[in-house]
């Protein structure tokens, strides 16, 4: 009798929490639309390619070579994914450390975006590295003179911190109030740790390229590249939060009903911060070029022109658009600036790790294989699905119903 009651309670819990109070049939019927099915087909293809990569090896699934050992799984999934996930520590620091309580409403979505970004970046890294069971070696060996050692430790630690930060809404959703209260009290400490680990490894990702002055084009190479990586991560964090909250306010509009959050004012505030940081970043990058004696390369050849496209089109232009939008209270302009800035960060990371890397090679240049592209697209789709699934259930964009 007791077993039957327990089983009924569990079934009720699953129906309420997982299937949003609907039967499995109704739930699937309502959600299996054509775009969702198409996305699932792409993800299934991506998972099949991952299985093939582990079966046949990196050479069979990718266009990587001894000349170009890093492709888009590192350049896009890892470098860009980690950078775009910087909203977690940026907004976390603004709210918990600097006391900008107005931004509290966007702290949880930023942490969730960061957490998912890191998980997907780690999956991409594991697919690239192969033999995931060997990753545990990092914790057993002393490699303190290696930048990769620092990156590995910081990513492990920061992902753990993000998991604990995300555990706050997760346990609130489960109704485990004691654990939730303890974690909520620990949030300030966790934010301090997240800022520390992020600062270390966002910059360390840039430090990976310090040993490649001959391989990375002089316009992108700099001995201060770790500073550029950190500052651009802050820009990516701010811009990604604006992009993500703009999309959330459209897609999950129902969840914002009844909330007294002035999203436009938050966007304008973030736009102002974005403008100032991007302005500084533009001059820092110029300083890097001068310091590297690479001024002569500006505008010269493909790479010189490509660098101008990145700097003028994806750094200076969004800087001015951010400034104009924030000054004149044009929310749309700020959102456009954020979108362009995000594209600029993606372009910058791809330039450094793929496009302007090995720039001296005239033949056998690296182009990603269709399998590499499929895996990267699949990971992005999985991230979007996961965000959507969580936001529909857990108190990320809204307080729980009984607290409304």
């Amino acid at each position: 009798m007791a077993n039957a009651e327990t089983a009924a309670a569990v079934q009720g819990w699953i129906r309420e929490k997982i299937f949003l109070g609907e039967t499995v049939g109704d739930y699937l019927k309502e959600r299996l639309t054509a775009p969702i099915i198409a996305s699932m087909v792409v993800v299934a293809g991506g998972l099949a390619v991952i299985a093939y990569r582990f079966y046949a090896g990196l050479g069979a699934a990718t266009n990587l070579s001894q000349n170009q050992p890093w492709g888009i799984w590192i350049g896009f999934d890892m470098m860009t994914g980690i950078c775009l996930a910087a909203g977690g520590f940026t907004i976390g620091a603004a709210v918990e450390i600097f006391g900008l309580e107005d931004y509290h409403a966007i702290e949880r979505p930023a942490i969730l975006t960061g957490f998912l970004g890191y998980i997907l970046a780690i999956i991409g890294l594991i697919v690239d590295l192969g033999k995931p069971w060997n990753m545990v070696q990092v914790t057993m060996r002393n490699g303190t003179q290696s930048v990769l050692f620092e990156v590995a430790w910081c990513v492990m630690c920061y992902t753990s911190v993000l998991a604990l930060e995300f555990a706050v809404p997760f346990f609130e959703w489960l109704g485990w109030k004691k654990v939730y209260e303890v974690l909520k009290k620990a949030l300030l400490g966790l934010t301090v740790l997240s800022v520390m680990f992020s600062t270390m490894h966002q910059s360390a990702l840039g430090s990976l390229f310090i040993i490649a002055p001959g391989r990375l084009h002089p316009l992108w190479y700099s001995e201060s590249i770790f500073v550029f990586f950190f500052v651009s991560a802050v820009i990516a964090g701010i811009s990604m939060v604006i992009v993500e909250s703009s999309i959330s306010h459209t897609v999950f509009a129902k969840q914002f009903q009844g909330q007294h959050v002035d999203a436009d004012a938050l966007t304008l505030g973030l736009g102002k911060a974005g403008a100032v940081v991007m302005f500084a970043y533009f001059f820092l990058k110029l300083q890097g070029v001068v310091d590297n004696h690479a001024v002569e390369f500006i505008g010269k050849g493909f790479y010189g022109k490509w660098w101008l496209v990145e700097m003028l089109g994806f750094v200076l232009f969004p800087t001015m658009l951010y400034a104009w939008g924030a000054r004149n209270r044009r929310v749309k302009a700020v959102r456009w600036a954020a979108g362009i800035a995000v594209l600029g960060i993606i372009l910058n990371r791809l330039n450094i790790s793929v496009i302007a890397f090995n720039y001296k090679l005239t033949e056998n240049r690296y182009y990603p294989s269709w399998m590499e592209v499929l895996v990267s697209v699949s990971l992005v789709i999985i991230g979007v699905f996961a965000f959507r699934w969580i936001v529909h259930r857990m108190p990320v964009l809204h307080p729980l119903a009984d607290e409304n």
Partner: protein
Amino acid sequence: MGEQDFLSGYSAKILEYGLAVTYLVLFVLFWRYVQGGPKAKQPGTAPEARKP
């Protein structure tokens, strides 16, 4: 990378310091521009939420 000798560092220094000074001057103007414009209300809370 450009060739380096004892003298090439000198011109770079002038450019570097010039760039830093230019940045500082422009930053003041940029900051004033961004902070100007129509007076913004306090971000984050909608007007009706602030009513007692």
